[in-house]
């Protein structure tokens, strides 16, 4: 990815300082100066508010979008992919057995509250997440660090917990001792969920840390009006020279996609997340607005419970794969801003098998396969539809309707079943469903997060909703999980995908490529597949 080097404009310090003062005083003067357009204030509009600004205790994407600006993690992802690059750690080492990771930290970095960033701070943070008894764990206030548990195999004391010990080697060196190798440990370190909070702030704010974030990032927290806006301002002491470019970032909540676009058109906001794919064409033709796409990092699927008749028959599963018109779904729901799915892994991921071609849309073949399986007279089947929109499936009702329509063409009569979201998840996890709709979004950019969670037999009863149970695949995934060499891992995953393709436990519908729109004044904005990107380098042109 190119890191668009922007010409460093000379900083107008006097200007910024007066601006600061004005902010504290009140809003009247502030607008006046904003009105002049001299100020670098960026308004980023999105559909929902952040739940919490304590990133680790939430899995909410809208939270990390903001915390990404305030906090930093030891490693960072590359601008447009999940490739790792230095973050707060400028260097790192892995022992040969893959059980010891050493990070060398940046020196001279300060938290927004003025305290120093150092190895001790890193240790405090990780221990806070791992140990429910920790003084900053705030378990009493319902803090749960579920992402930590998922990514590191549980919490302190659990069998699967992988971080055995954290060793502060010196002020700026820290060493993690693992109980067993973990192929995606480094990948985890790049996740915004594992960024570093000021221990002093944890002490000061206690459980209210979620409303008073203090990190090392390019922007400092100013204020938060729930369900309306979060205001951040430039961190003048930011350790990366010349950054950030913006003086202020406002995260505005506008729940309706269409309202957001209206606001963008009227110049009220600068960037909007969650553009309706159907509106993309209009945006593209608008000279004042630029269209952005975020690389696919998820997929929606039509799952098949392989334990239920007739879906226990591979032929039927394949037939269904042939029967569903993915292109149509991609077109109808995403206006083409989606990639018809082939593998249960987003394209571009480590080990993505691009030799596998997805099932074509071929109703005739589907009928043949059904006949072969003994269902020439048609089948009746339940199609479970999820009740809520998810990033990978913005309108599940409509997709279900399209699928129902498709299946009807080949003689499968699908009866749509609706459940509330919580029971839906509970019941599908328990295997009550036949055909069902779900999806998966990536977090750390590692294939294991997809394949290991969705298709390993150990996930049955949990995230393996298809109840797919294939020893070969299990074997391959187990190996890949602990391997440290990334090429070796890639190879193992490719093999697994072949088997999965043949066994067809799911119809991988589409990988959506979310579209965004921004005013053409916005420069250097690069959407990241993880949904959160730093705005440090973004600036507004005149």
């Amino acid at each position, binding site marked *: 990815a190119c890191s668009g080097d922007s010409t460093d404009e000379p900083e107008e310090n006097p200007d910024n300082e007066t601006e600061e003062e004005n902010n504290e005083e009140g809003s009247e003067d502030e607008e006046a100066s904003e009105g002049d357009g001299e100020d670098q204030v960026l308004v980023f509009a999105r559909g929902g508010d952040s739940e919490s600004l304590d990133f680790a205790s939430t899995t909410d994407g809208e939270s990390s979008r903001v915390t990404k600006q305030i906090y930093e993690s030891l490693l960072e992802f590359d601008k447009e992919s999940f490739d790792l690059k230095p973050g707060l750690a400028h260097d790192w080492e892995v022992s040969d057995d893959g059980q010891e990771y050493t990070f060398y930290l940046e020196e001279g970095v300060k938290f927004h509250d003025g305290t120093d960033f150092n190895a001790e701070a890193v240790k405090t943070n990780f221990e806070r997440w791992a140990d429910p008894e920790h003084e900053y764990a705030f378990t009493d206030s319902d803090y749960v660090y579920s992402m930590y548990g998922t990514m590191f195999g549980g919490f302190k004391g659990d069998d699967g917990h992988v971080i055995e010990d954290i060793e502060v080697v010196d002020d700026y060196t820290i060493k993690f001792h693992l109980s067993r190798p973990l192929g995606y440990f480094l990948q985890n370190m790049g996740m915004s969920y594992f960024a570093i909070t000021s221990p002093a702030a944890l002490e000061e704010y206690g459980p209210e840390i979620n409303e008073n974030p203090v990190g090392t990032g390019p922007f400092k927290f100013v204020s938060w009006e729930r369900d309306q806006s979060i205001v951040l301002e430039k961190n003048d002491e930011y350790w990366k020279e010349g950054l950030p470019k913006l003086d202020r970032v406002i995260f505005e909540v506008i729940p309706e996609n*269409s309202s957001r676009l209206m606001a963008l058109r009227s110049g009220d906001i600068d960037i909007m997340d969650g553009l*309706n794919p*159907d509106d993309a064409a209009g945006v593209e033709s608008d000279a004042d607005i630029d269209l952005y796409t975020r690389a696919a990092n998820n997929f929606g699927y039509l799952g098949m419970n392989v334990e239920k008749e007739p879906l226990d028959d591979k032929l039927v599963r394949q037939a269904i794969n042939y029967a569903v018109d993915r292109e149509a779904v991609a077109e109808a729901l995403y206006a083409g801003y989606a990639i018809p799915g082939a593998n249960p892994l987003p394209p571009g991921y480590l080990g993505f098998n691009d030799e596998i071609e997805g099932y074509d849309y071929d109703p005739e073949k589907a009928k043949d396969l059904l006949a072969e399986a003994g269902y020439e007279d048609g089948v009746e089947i339940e199609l479970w539809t999820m009740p809520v929109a998810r990033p990978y499936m913005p*309108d599940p*009702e*409509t997709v279900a*309707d399209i699928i129902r329509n498709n299946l009807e063409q080949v003689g499968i009569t699908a009866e*749509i079943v*609706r*459940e509330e979201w919580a029971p839906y998840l509970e019941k599908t996890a328990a295997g009550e469903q036949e055909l069902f709709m779900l999806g998966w979004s990536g977090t750390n950019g590692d294939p294991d997060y997809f394949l290991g969670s969705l298709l390993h037999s150990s996930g049955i009863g949990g995230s393996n909703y298809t109840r797919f149970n294939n020893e070969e695949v299990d074997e391959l995934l187990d190996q890949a999980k602990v391997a440290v060499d990334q090429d070796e891992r890639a190879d193992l995953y490719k093999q697994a995908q072949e088997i999965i393709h043949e066994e067809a436990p799911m119809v991988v519908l589409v990988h959506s490529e979310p579209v965004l729109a921004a005013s053409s004044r916005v420069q250097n904005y690069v959407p990241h597949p993880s949904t959160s990107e730093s705005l440090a380098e973004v600036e507004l042109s005149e």
Partner: protein
Amino acid sequence: MTTEKKEQEKVDIHPNKEGYEPDEITAISPWKDAFRRLRKNRLSMTGFFIIVFFIIVGIFAPLLTSHGIDDQELVNRLQPPSSEHWFGTDDLGRDILTRIAYGARISLLVGFIAVTGALIFGTLLGIIAGYFGKWVDMVISRIFDILLAFPSILLAIAIVAILGPSLQNALVAIAIINIPIFGRLVRSKVLSLREEEFVMAAKAQGLKNGRIIFHHILPNSLAPIIVQATLGFGTAILEAAALGFLGLGAKQPTPEWGYMLSNARDFIQLAPWTLVFPGISIMLVVLGFNLIGDGLRDALDPKMKN
């Protein structure tokens, strides 16, 4: 001839002859009378025709269009109105006119079922509370009070949340929130009728309670109930549409108007026609019921007589 007439008139000197008034031999029942007045009310008749129109459209929907409600033509998504698709197409390329026509069935049915349900239970509870009084009245009235203490839409949303979002459950919710409305109306009517002289007279004849309730009190409470039911039709349809709009009512591919609007909402910039027609349909049907309801209120109001 003159003597004939005179004789005729002379005979009329009799206590039961109403002077020169033409003797109306035909008995005009109060219902017929009200209906006659209603028929003269032009606005009500307009409302009536609107409803009849939608009923016909609903019943004959399959004959009216060559499209099916779920005929997806993804290539023809979001087409503006044309001779092929009079009202345009939606995001799955379905003909909006067709969906609206089928949707008429749903809306009218929703109104009918929800109102009937609320009417039956509400009337029953209201009569029980009003006629038997004492603690029965206390309990029932308190329940009504409590239910009415919640803004109705909020209560409906909560009920649908319990039951799960679907058209049936939306119906149930709407019926429930309307029960206390009918209940209270009937109760107060029963209470006031209980004091009326003709009920007193019925009691003085030695009639039994049951007969007094069903022959005297109920028929005389009917007028406001009918008016409320008609207007309730309209509100029920609006409430169902609101629930549908919030995603708590009908679901794909049901062409419920509120749900159609909620789906179309994303296309407000791209294809406004997907929003315009379902909205107008809701408004017209509700307007129809309100017009009839208003007319009925006037026609059935004893004050308007003579």
